[in-house]
């Protein structure tokens, strides 16, 4: 069976006069229909870059130098423009800046629908009302401008817009980062519901492991431009195989732990610059379980779990 989205050994390089910078290297992951894949990692780990690569939004000098991106079994490298909105859609972090302040949201919605679907004006308006109800907004607000909505409602508008062309895959790039926590939960639940109801595949990019725990089926943990661990959510949270995943989970405040007496753990140091990646495992300098082999040779992800030498030995 072909996956909805299948990224195979993707490498993205930015070249300038100082040389080549591999912002993504050896990225392999897949998203199925009706599945939410979480992508987590710290800033600069390549989370958003993966999303941009799929959407064909890499700006020069960045380009795909290796690997393939398959959508429904067909390579879409260089062809993503024709898929945007119709098959793959994307939503961004800040719902205010992703809406044109001068246009009524209903007009944006019907225009987007009519770009992708062979429908007339009245049917588009009909559908716009239905889609507003689907994302939990009052259809009477279709005449409003973006500034007349609250942050959470705006993100609902953005989601309605992203789904206007009835795409099969949604890339959500930190969709809840700009929202407060209660609204965040509502938006995640909305995405979850849409995913189940429409069979939508979702790539949910975030740096918040709480978001992952709440909404995803599987998770890819990114570090320094490559996934270091890909696993089911409960599996990863309970038994992280990679020391980095372990550190991420340990650094999350827990409500059940006796935190009054315990300091929150943190991962020492910071991610190495992409042009100064160590020879072996990129995480080795910060890893508390580091072995000689880690400094020598880069671990590869085997049987799709963790890219770490620990499991091999």
């Amino acid at each position, binding site marked *: 069976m072909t996956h909805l989205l299948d990224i195979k050994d993707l490498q993205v390089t930015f070249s300038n006069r100082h040389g080549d910078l591999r912002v993504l290297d050896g990225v392999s992951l897949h998203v199925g229909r009706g599945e939410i894949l979480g992508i987590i990692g710290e800033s600069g780990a390549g989370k958003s870059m993966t999303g941009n690569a799929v959407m064909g939004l890499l700006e020069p000098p960045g380009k795909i130098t290796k690997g393939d991106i398959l959508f429904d079994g067909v390579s879409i490298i260089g062809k993503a423009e024709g898929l*945007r*909105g119709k098959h793959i859609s994307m939503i961004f972090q800040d719902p205010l800046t992703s809406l044109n302040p001068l*246009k009524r949201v209903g007009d944006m919605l019907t225009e987007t629908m009519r770009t992708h679907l062979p429908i007339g004006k009245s049917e588009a308006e009909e559908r716009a009302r239905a889609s507003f109800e689907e994302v939990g907004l009052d259809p009477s607000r279709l005449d409003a401008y973006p500034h007349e909505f609250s942050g959470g409602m705006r993100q609902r508008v953005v989601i309605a817009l992203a789904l206007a062309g009835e795409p099969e895959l949604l890339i959500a790039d930190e969709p809840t980062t700009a929202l407060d926590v209660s609204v965040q939960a509502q938006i995640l639940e909305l995405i979850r519901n849409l995913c189940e109801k429409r069979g939508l595949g979702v790539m949910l990019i975030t740096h918040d492991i709480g978001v992952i725990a709440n909404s995803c089926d599987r998770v890819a943990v990114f570090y320094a431009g490559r996934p270091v661990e890909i696993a089911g959510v409960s599996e990863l949270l309970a038994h992280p195989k990679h020391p980095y995943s372990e550190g991420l989970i340990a650094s999350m405040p827990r409500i059940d732990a006796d935190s009054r007496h315990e300091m929150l753990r943190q991962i020492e140091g910071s991610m190495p610059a992409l042009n100064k990646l160590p020879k072996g495992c990129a995480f080795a300098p910060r890893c508390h379980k580091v072995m000689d082999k880690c400094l020598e040779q880069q671990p590869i992800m085997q049987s799709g779990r963790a890219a770490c030498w620990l499991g091999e030995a």
Partner: protein
Amino acid sequence: MGNWWQSDLFYSYRTNPVAVISSVVFVVLGLAALFAPWISPTNPFDAGSLNLMNGFTPPFSANQFTGDYFVLGTDDQGRDLVSAMLYGMRISLMVGILAVGLAMVLGVTLGLVAGYRGGWVDAVVMRLADVQLTFPSILIAMLVAGIARGLVPPDQREGMATIILILSIGLSDWVQFARTVRSSTLLEKEKEYVQAARVLGRSHLAIMFRHILPGIVSPVLVIATISLALAIIAEATLSFLGVGAPPTEPSLGTLIRIGQDFLFAGEWWILLFPALTLLLIALSVNLLGDWLRDALNPKLK
């Protein structure tokens, strides 16, 4: 939802006496020009109705030979100056508005494409604009007018004169629009909603004209208003220099040129009244443009 009379712009207009007065002056002159055929005492373009005996009649008095009375006097051909000015304003305003329209369409389109596409398109358009800016725009207009006249067969030159005028002023004035629109486009296209529109699969054309353009209309409006005053003056200048409206269908500039010939012979009115009218039009449009610029500038609020 606010109505237009509750808008900030209208409030700023209402509370600014200069804006109110200049817009009233402009509207009155504009209406007078528009309805010239109905309100003017004679038809100055009808050469057959002119009586050369009426030539050089001074204002506010009757002609010494024929006894005909003309409020503001007549020119050398015996044309009633009021009628000639009404019809002249018609030509001046029409040429000005259409020339600015042409410059606006041309400049906005080129500026939008240059700013949005960038790269060599941007370089070519903007270098062209830079080169054109090194010449005085009246020179460009004369150049275009000269070339256009050369291309038109001599027997059609009279009829084409107005179109040539519009073309030459329009082509000399697009640079302002293109530069402003380009810089606004550069700012606007970096905004996230433009990228959002891209990921929703909107075409480049739709993004340029439906998303970016509405965001940059206010500087365009300001430039259009100020350009209108300049275009009307440019038309007068070209006509004054003799490459504009023909003497058979005089615009304000043509009337001023005719009047200039007789100024030192004592027939001052042929020059004075058209010149004052031109001044009034240009000043009112200019003041309106100034007000609009301040009213639409968020930094001055």
